[in-house]
């Protein structure tokens, strides 16, 4: 049989043309339905769900099994984008990047277009990820084998610096945040030395083990991205004009954006597929690198001030990029799993165990047209068809979904907060990660107010351990001259350039005080003649420096005292972070910081912020949400989830949103019942029972 024959056979195996194909298609559809739900619900990951479902597939045929599991796994990124766009809550860890521009568009009444763009790019991404890699099978081996530890290290630096470069105008603050993310990723058990690092055992107690497995990415991203959105919602009480927002044509505009920016979508899909291919780098990274690529050359974009300066066209790029990449990475990570038994991501690692249980042995046979290539192709087709089905399903319910965004902020916010609560609770079935989410929620609000970009922090957390590992392995395996490899030098160009630009500004700022800004920057900063930063901005910059100095002291002491555990990388990360934070602070104090410029513009022009709802969480709302969240935790922990959720929803609807009492009762009852049904009954998640347990 030829490769083309295998390609056709692979498709036929999962289409309802034969009895076996019908069964496979049915399971594929069931998988998509489940994946749809999993994608929307934060805290429920596709990897975890696939692991739960494996035992149910023992008696199924391999083709049907993989149609089911892969169907589930490959649509979560698509539906995860939907919640990111609509309510600013990333339904999956891989959909956080879509929040930034996607939700900003929703806030400006462009939800339909943003959804269209996200869904359209998802399908294209899935198609390119799957079929592009099917065609690239002959070169997959050299591609995979060309990346040793030194190249992997440099690639992680490339990813993190390019994201720092585009996600805010304050590049030094971005780099500092990336270093902070690196340090956060060091929290937990050091896998190499086998001892816990920075786990706060002194405070939590050595038997708590809570931070031993590191910070949960889901809990952190819910905190950084979802909580600030909810805080903003609490201060938004106006009713939107529904006539324009829900028009279906908006979705078509989003689809046409995919065509309009086809080369961007193609490039981001390829970026996603390549990152998916690299073992251990995976989903959390692909979205951000694609985002960075899409926003490259878009001026005026500041992550922390979404929407105020960018055109719709620029924002839609920020949706298309990650939308395409977080789907194409699926195909990318599947191919090395099948060809070498080396999973590219967590969910493919779990799929690998399903392969083994079904007697499918990864290896060259999977790429051989005479043997299992048909099965390989049927898996790649599954990814494509699953995404088509998911988009079709989304289109069916899209109007209802968009209506959510028309609700008054004060009505919507308590529901979303409860949703986030359950999501972070589900991460480890305990209250610990709810607290982590709350802490990072506060940090997220602080970061937005100070124009410290959030994406580099999150990516630093995702990539920290692999960066440390690959650096350590490079030095061990290749000696002191590991960086002399041609591949490393080639990749190094980008990070060097990214760090060069602020370094240059910084140096010129010191050598020639006048004339330091480029013409473009000078134009924006001309109203700024007094050079003074606002007091809170200065205080925050100083605080950032102090935090880094404290971290540097801790890591320095560990390094010098020879404490067990890897100490070099945490020290380097905090050292670099201190440098970047100091640089950012000095520029701010000298009135040269872009953040400073923007704050002045805002202060001087209130009318702009009147037109578009502010995206900057106010300190008052943040405090209110913190109080509310604490109350929520206390009530749920004592009264149990069902009763607690009802009481808190009712209270906030009546007192906060001033909804009439009987309407509020119905809404609170429906909301809490829906969550209990979905999480406790459908997904068997052990929600807190409260003090009822004691009696």
């Amino acid at each position: 049989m030829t490769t083309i024959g295998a390609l056709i056979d692979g498709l036929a195996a999962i289409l309802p043309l034969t009895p076996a194909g019908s069964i496979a298609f049915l399971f594929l559809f069931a998988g998509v339905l489940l994946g749809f739900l999993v994608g929307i619900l934060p805290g429920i990951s596709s990897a975890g769900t696939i692991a739960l479902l494996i035992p149910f597939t023992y008696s199924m045929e391999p083709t049907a099994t993989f149609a089911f599991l892969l169907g589930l796994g490959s649509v979560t990124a698509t539906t995860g984008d939907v919640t990111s766009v609509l309510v600013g809550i990333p339904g999956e860890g891989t959909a956080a990047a879509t929040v930034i521009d996607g939700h900003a568009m929703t806030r400006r009444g462009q939800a339909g277009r943003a959804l269209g763009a996200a869904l359209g790019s998802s399908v294209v991404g899935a198609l390119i990820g799957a079929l592009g890699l099917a065609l690239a099978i002959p070169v997959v081996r050299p591609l995979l084998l060309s990346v040793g530890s030194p190249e992997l290290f440099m690639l992680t630096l490339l990813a993190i610096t390019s994201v720092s470069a585009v996600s805010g105008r304050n590049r030094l603050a971005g780099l500092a945040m990336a270093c902070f993310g690196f340090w956060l990723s060091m929290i937990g058990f050091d896998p190499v030395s086998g001892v816990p690092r920075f786990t706060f055992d002194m405070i939590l107690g050595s038997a708590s083990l809570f931070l031993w497995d590191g910070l949960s990415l889901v809990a952190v991203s819910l905190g950084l991205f979802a909580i600030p959105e909810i805080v903003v919602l609490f201060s938004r009480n106006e009713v939107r004009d529904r006539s324009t927002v829900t028009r279906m044509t908006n979705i078509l505009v989003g689809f046409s954006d995919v065509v309009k920016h086809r080369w961007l979508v193609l490039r981001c899909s390829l970026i996603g597929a390549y990152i998916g291919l690299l073992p251990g780098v995976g989903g959390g990274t692909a979205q951000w690198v694609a985002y960075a690529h899409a926003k490259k050359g878009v001026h005026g974009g500041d992550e922390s001030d979404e929407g105020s300066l960018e055109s719709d066209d620029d924002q839609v790029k920020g949706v298309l990029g990650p939308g395409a990449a977080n789907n194409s990475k699926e195909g990318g990570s599947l191919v090395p799993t099948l060809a070498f038994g080396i999973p590219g991501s967590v969910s493919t690692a779990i799929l690998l165990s399903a392969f083994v249980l079904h007697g499918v042995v990864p290896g060259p046979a999977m790429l051989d047209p005479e043997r299992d290539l048909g099965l390989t192709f049927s898996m790649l087709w599954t990814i494509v068809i699953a995404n088509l089905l998911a988009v079709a399903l989304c289109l069916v319910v899209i109007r209802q979904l968009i209506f959510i965004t028309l609700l008054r902020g004060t009505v919507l916010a308590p529901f979303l907060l409860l949703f986030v609560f359950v999501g972070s609770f589900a991460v480890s079935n305990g209250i610990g990660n709810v607290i982590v989410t709350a802490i990072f929620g506060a940090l997220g609000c602080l970061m937005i107010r100070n124009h410290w970009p959030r994406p580099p922090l999150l990516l630093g957390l995702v990539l920290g351990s692999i960066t440390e590992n690959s650096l350590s392995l490079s030095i061990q395996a290749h000696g002191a001259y590991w960086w002399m490899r041609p591949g490393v030098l080639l990749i190094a160009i980008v990070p060097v350039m990214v760090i060069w630009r602020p370094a240059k500004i910084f140096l010129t700022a010191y050598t020639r005080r006048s004339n330091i800004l480029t013409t473009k920057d000078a134009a924006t900063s001309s109203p700024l003649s007094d050079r003074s930063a606002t007091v809170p901005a200065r205080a925050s910059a100083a605080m950032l420096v102090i935090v880094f100095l404290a971290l540097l002291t801790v890591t320095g002491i560990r390094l010098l005292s020879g404490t067990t555990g890897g100490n070099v990388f945490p020290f380097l990360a905090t050292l670099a972070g201190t440098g970047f934070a100091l640089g950012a602070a000095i520029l701010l104090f000298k009135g040269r910081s872009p953040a400073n410029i923007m704050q002045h513009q805002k202060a001087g022009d209130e009318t702009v912020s009147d037109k578009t709802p502010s995206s900057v969480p106010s300190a008052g709302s943040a405090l209110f949400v913190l109080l509310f969240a604490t109350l929520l935790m206390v009530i749920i922990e004592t009264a149990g989830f069902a009763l607690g959720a009802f009481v808190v929803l009712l209270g906030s609807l009546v007192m906060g949103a001033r909804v009439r009492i009987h309407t509020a009762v119905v809404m609170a009852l429906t909301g809490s019942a829906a969550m209990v049904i979905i999480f406790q009954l459908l997904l068997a998640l052990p929600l807190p029972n409260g003090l009822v347990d004691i009696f």
Partner: protein
Amino acid sequence: MRRQNQSITNRHIIRLITAIALVFAMQAQTDDSFYAGKVVTIIVGSTAGGGLDAYARVIARHIGRHIPGTPEVRVQNMPGAGTLVAAHYFFYKVPADGLTIGSWSGFYTIKWRVEDKPDGIKPAKFGWIGAPVSPNTVCALMARTGIDSIDAWRASSRPLKFGSSSRTNMTHILMRFMGNATSLPIQLITGYKGTSNIRLALQTGEIDGACFSWPSMRSTARAMLDAEGDDKLIPLIRVGDPGDPEVADLVEVHDLIDDPSDIATLDSMSAGFELHRSYTTPPGTPKDRLEILRRAFDATMSDEAFLADIERAGLVVNPIRGHRLEEYVNLIVSMPAAQLEALRPLVDP
């Protein structure tokens, strides 16, 4: 009338209480019905997808049938720190009701014994149910190195790079020991995330060789074992007897060691190897429930449907019974001070 009604109610309540008390008393006496309608959870200390997880999932599918009351059995993954997170959780946190089974590397027993922290984990306190397989490590080199025999390896002018995941990992400690006790030139490259990344590093040429447990190598590295030319992975040393003709002719590690004290060290480590894939109950689990689980485990190991699933998954079964595991633990716990000192530099990270 009213009084009569009340007395009936009281009588009902008394009867009800008596009935409930009886049920509890019966349950306390015989544990046969204890598991009925309950859920038994197997906590696996690795991510889904690894060898440890694969065994647990197949066992979970079958062991429930052999426990009186046929409870539902679920697998819960608690990855982290080479199964140490799960082990700690299991020692300190899990209620000792016989409803939770742990699967983490029992080799840490040696580490805990050597460290001997007052508030540390005491391996003798666990209940040892059994192990489906003994790990029987095999060390192999890539053909690319040009080395296809022990003699060629010994004569190598440069140390051969061996990949490992963590300094607390069983195979790492074994390789470290081999580097000290044999005349083979070995350089350890530590920090790979799991065996799949070690396999990738073997193929990229970053490392020259690796030691895996044979049950894992024979299935996950099958394509490399079967490859031709430079890409072939050649097994050279075995630890113990994996009972597989494919590696039966390899040199056993004891034959590479001359010093009797090194042999004694290796033997005390061997007890730890046997514990590597063991299944345990948390400290304080009632003896009769441990016995029920042991019997169920032994019955599962010879269950035909179970063995068919094992074969389909490309795994092998070579069970070690719970009582035997307990003997190994006692051996480690009562290890003489001289042995402990010999192990200390190997185990301390």
